[in-house]
């Protein structure tokens, strides 16, 4: 074994030298190996960015596979998804993996974001890493929204009608937004074509660019150190090399996530509880909507909060007030590295910690109410 290892590693080394002589990759490897990961009690949260990345890779692979059989269009979308899950070998598995991985990816991204928020890791000099992360989350949510319609079943049809209808409530631009999103006044086959193009071409292209920037920023600046480390003597700070030590741990976590994903997809191919995506019946624009229309769980808090608003607040439309409040809240959230002045001088801010806790609490309570009421 030991001998064969050295033999094969000899071959790898020779291949490496061959490439290195031509492209001088040693410099790149040296650069990569500078990155270290702080070892501290909250180190576990460092894994969630990597988990999100891994689940995104799963999305790309399973998404490309679904493309082999999926056909957009009002007469073919539902039929092709049914064909995938009913006829194609392992088609049910690929669809289940794509759906599970999508949901877990959003979940992991939320955890990643909140852990970065509460550790103040967005503070100077990582403002752009935070902003690019927010952009990635927005893109991921758009991925989810556009992908939801593609099977063209009853649920997705009405959820899309409600979702795009909300865009219609935006002042002045609403009507245009609605027509642009739907490809007409109504949700039709034209809407599928648009969402399909968005889902498989435009969003992946944008996501790849922003994700590359996000990862390059992290590689360039290294991991953020906890605020409490400011006063620590450098001898007491513990670090782990990213390459290969943290990467190995990352890979192990990915393997565990892959296994969780596989178990969920095999035993619950249609999802479970409120996270479910049965194919159901084909969308029929002329039939009445099913009794309960719900958005995906990650839109639930917004959906529910808007439902609580009265029809009019100070003679302004309630929906409009709600959307405005969400927009302002989202902007504060996105620009928190610039707004939180204390974070710029490496000091913790109670105000922003309470704000973060309020946001989490708001999301959790509204989500639960959304499913209970």
């Amino acid at each position, binding site marked *: *074994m*030991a*001998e064969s*290892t050295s033999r094969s590693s000899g071959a790898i080394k020779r291949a490496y030298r061959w490439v290195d002589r031509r492209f001088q990759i040693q410099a790149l490897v040296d650069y990569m190996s500078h990155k270290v990961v702080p070892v501290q009690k909250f180190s576990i949260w460092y894994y969630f960015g990597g988990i999100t990345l891994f689940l995104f890779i799963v999305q790309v*692979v399973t998404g490309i*596979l679904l493309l*082999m*059989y999926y056909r957009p269009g009002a007469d073919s979308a539902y039929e092709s998804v049914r064909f995938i899950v009913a*006829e*194609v*070998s*392992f*088609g049910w*598995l*690929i669809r289940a993996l794509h759906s599970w991985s999508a949901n877990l990816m959003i979940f992991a991204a939320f955890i990643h974001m909140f852990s970065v928020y509460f550790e103040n890791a967005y503070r100077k000099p990582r403002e752009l890493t935070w902003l690019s992360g927010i952009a990635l989350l927005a893109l991921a949510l758009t991925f989810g929204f556009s992908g939801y319609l593609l099977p063209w079943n009853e649920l997705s049809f009405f959820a899309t009608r409600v979702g795009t209808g909300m865009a219609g409530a935006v002042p002045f631009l609403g009507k245009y937004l609605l027509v642009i999103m739907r490809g007409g006044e109504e949700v039709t086959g034209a809407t599928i074509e648009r969402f399909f193009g968005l889902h498989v071409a435009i969003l992946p292209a944008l996501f790849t660019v922003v994700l590359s920037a996000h990862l390059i920023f992290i590689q360039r600046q290294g991991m953020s150190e906890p605020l409490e480390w400011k006063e620590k003597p450098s001898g007491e700070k513990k670090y782990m090399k990213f390459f290969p030590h943290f990467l190995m741990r990352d890979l192990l976590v990915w*393997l565990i996530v*892959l296994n969780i994903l*596989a178990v969920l997809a095999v035993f619950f191919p249609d999802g479970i509880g409120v996270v479910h995506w049965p194919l159901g019946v084909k969308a029929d624009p002329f039939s009445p909507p099913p009794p309960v229309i719900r958005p995906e769980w990650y839109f639930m808090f917004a959906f529910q909060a808007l439902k609580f608003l009265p029809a009019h607040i100070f003679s302004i439309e309630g929906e409009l007030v709600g959307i405005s409040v969400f927009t302002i809240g989202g902007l504060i959230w996105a620009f928190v590295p610039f707004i939180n002045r204390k974070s710029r001088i490496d000091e913790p801010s109670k105000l922003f910690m309470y704000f973060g806790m309020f946001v989490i609490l708001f999301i959790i309570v509204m989500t639960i109410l959304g499913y209970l009421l």
Partner: protein
Amino acid sequence: MPEERTRRDFLGIILGGGLIATLGATIYPIFKYLIPPPSGEANVSQVKLPFKKADIAADPKKAKTFRFGRDLGIIVLLPSGELRALSARCTHLDCTVQNKPDEGLLWCACHNGKYSYDGRNISGPPPKPLQVFAVNIVGEDIFVSKGKA
């Protein structure tokens, strides 16, 4: 000296084997998924043509093509007034053959393959004859079926 197996070797085998198994469990479904299931139309053995003999006679090439399950067929009005149905897929590279009434044969435009009306490959690259289908006329309707012509 006999090679001694250490715990590290054992772990290496477990890890390597696990990785190979994981790869296999990932690649096998993908490979199977990429192979499309057989089409539901594969076993069509008889088809009623959506046109009448008069339509074929009116065609300048005295022939019409039709879908036969997953296959494509061609029905030709012979100079004798008889109808003859054959597979329209050239046995060379799957192009669609057409009738040449002036030469009295079926012709594939892609690589100049030629077939006689009884399906024999008489000239050009086609390696095999065209399959001939049975034609039955019931009233005005034309039925084409696989099997002995």
